[in-house]
């Protein structure tokens, strides 16, 4: 035998395990999508093709307002998270090592490690105090909470991009009469842009589908699409939820495809 190097794919049973994993991952999603087109009320028995659940969802004012709210929160939170993450990435990679750098790194990534339910309860209590102090009841709490847990997701692709960037390019810009701001604006930022876009999209998707923290932080009448769906599921399962889920799924798939295209290694 010429090639005796170890390959996981050659282990016995590899194909079986791989196929099982894919089936478990995707079969439920395929089922969900399929039944969103069901003519009947059942999410288990096929009764013919119809788009009327989509029409119902579209006509439902609760769905509409939840969608708008979800989008407002996701857009604001991902914008804030991306800005913070960009500055943090520049601060942690673009200078020589400083004391407390590891601490900052851990602090930024904290939401990835602390159980979400803990953060949710903490925010509920904290925002409760702030609410009684200030009397403010708006979407700001949700936006702030989402911005916080989206930041590490935005940070990672931006930092990865920065670390792969040649530092001598900024030196070259300075050598060619660029002020520090011009060097950032004309060289660093354009080269960083794919990382920033990827970070923003990841943050957007993460915000869009959050349930736990949103459920705890939201005030009355502040349902986002996922918490609205959760509420619906508690009563009766209807293909309308399937239709909304399919819509969310489509949006996510589009964004994640864009994310992978942007972060794909170019030569």
């Amino acid at each position, binding site marked *: 035998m010429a090639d005796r190097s170890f390959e996981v794919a050659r282990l016995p049973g590899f194909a079986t395990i791989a196929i099982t994993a894919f089936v478990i991952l995707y079969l439920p999603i395929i089922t969900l999508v399929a039944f969103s087109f069901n003519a009947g009320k059942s999410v288990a028995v096929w009764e013919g093709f119809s788009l009327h659940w989509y029409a119902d969802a579209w006509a439902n004012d609760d769905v509409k307002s939840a969608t708008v709210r979800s989008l407002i929160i996701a857009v604001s939170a991902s914008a804030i998270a991306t800005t913070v993450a960009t500055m943090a990435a520049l601060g942690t990679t673009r200078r020589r090592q400083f004391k407390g750098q590891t601490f900052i790194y851990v602090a930024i990534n904290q939401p990835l490690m602390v159980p979400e339910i803990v953060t949710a309860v903490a925010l509920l209590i904290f925002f409760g105090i702030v609410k009684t102090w200030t009397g403010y009841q708006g979407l700001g709490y949700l936006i702030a909470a989402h911005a916080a847990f989206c930041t590490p997701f935005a940070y990672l692709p931006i930092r990865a991009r920065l670390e792969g960037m040649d530092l001598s390019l900024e030196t*070259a810009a300075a050598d060619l009469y660029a002020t520090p701001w011009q060097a950032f604006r004309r060289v660093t930022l354009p080269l960083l842009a794919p990382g920033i876009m990827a970070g923003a999209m990841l943050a957007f998707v993460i915000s869009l589908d959050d349930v736990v923290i949103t459920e705890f932080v939201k005030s009355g009448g502040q349902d986002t699409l996922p918490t609205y769906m959760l509420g619906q599921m508690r009563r009766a399962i209807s293909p309308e939820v399937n239709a909304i889920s399919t819509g969310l799924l489509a949006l996510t798939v589009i964004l994640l495809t864009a994310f992978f295209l942007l972060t794909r290694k170019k030569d």
Partner: protein
Amino acid sequence: MTTQVTIAVRNVVKAFGAGDAAVRALDDVSLDIRKGEFFTLLGPSGCGKTTLLRLIAGFEMPTEGQILLDGTDISALPPNKRPVNTVFQSYALFPHLTVAQNIGFGLQMQGRPAAEVDATTKRMLALVKLDALATRKTSQLSGGQQQRVALARALAPQPKVLLLDEPLSALDLKLRKEMQIELKRLQTETGITFVFVTHDQEEALTMSDRIGVMSHGKLQQTGTPREIYTTPVNRFVASFIGETNFLPGTTVPGGVRIGSGAVVETATSRPGDVTVAIRPEQVRIVAASDPGAIPATITNLVYFGTDTHFHLALADGTEVVSRLQSGTDEARLTPGTAVGLRFAPGAAQVLED
């Protein structure tokens, strides 16, 4: 005026780190670089060449000393305020810009009008023969082409000084020879002062108007290629550039008495124990009976094509190498033959050590 000084380096020290761990990358370097000359910094890797360039460019600040440009102290100016441009060893071309945009970058940052940026960029593209590639991205270029873009980009703003940090080291031999000629042409055509860094002594000898030889953060000698080669001031310079015979000895009236007892006539002298340096091509082999010749025995013979190197031993065993054109005397000069050696007049140098 050709003797006008463009860059004056005054007692510059550059230390990295602090306390006991400090590295003196430059140790009291003083140097004048003249307007319009092709000046080469030559020295082994780690001797401080890049550090000196980075100080002139403004990427580093001197720990001590000053750097003057046309008589003005620029030590405190940031790189973007210095009329000095660099060709980086890694080229550092902007990957998101086209060839033309790369070349125009400096002019744009200087705030020149768009028409002037375009015109100068066109002129630079023609100068480095890249007109056909103006709209390409730099990643689509070969190494040699990237090198030309880096040159054009640094020349476009017409700096007072162009700094080149081992720009040819990444190229293969054939391309390197071409680029050596190309660089000389660009320097003559633009009249810009070039400060060129290399660790390749042959490159330094063939390209430079003057050379500064560096070692361990110190400038060892400055001079024309001929001066550096024929009158090296110390053992380091003599051994780093070309091949040399070192003959230890003691100063006596009229020359130096070397170990074998023979007296070598030298132009200069200094009292006490010294070392005499003599290039192999200045050592002539004559008949053993020749009056005044230093007696020696041939030990070995190495054929190099146009030249043959004869390894010889003096009476006390000191080794001397003589380089002769091939095809003359090999038949007669076989290992074991007793011969005499004569040094070309004025060729033997007394070294400072």
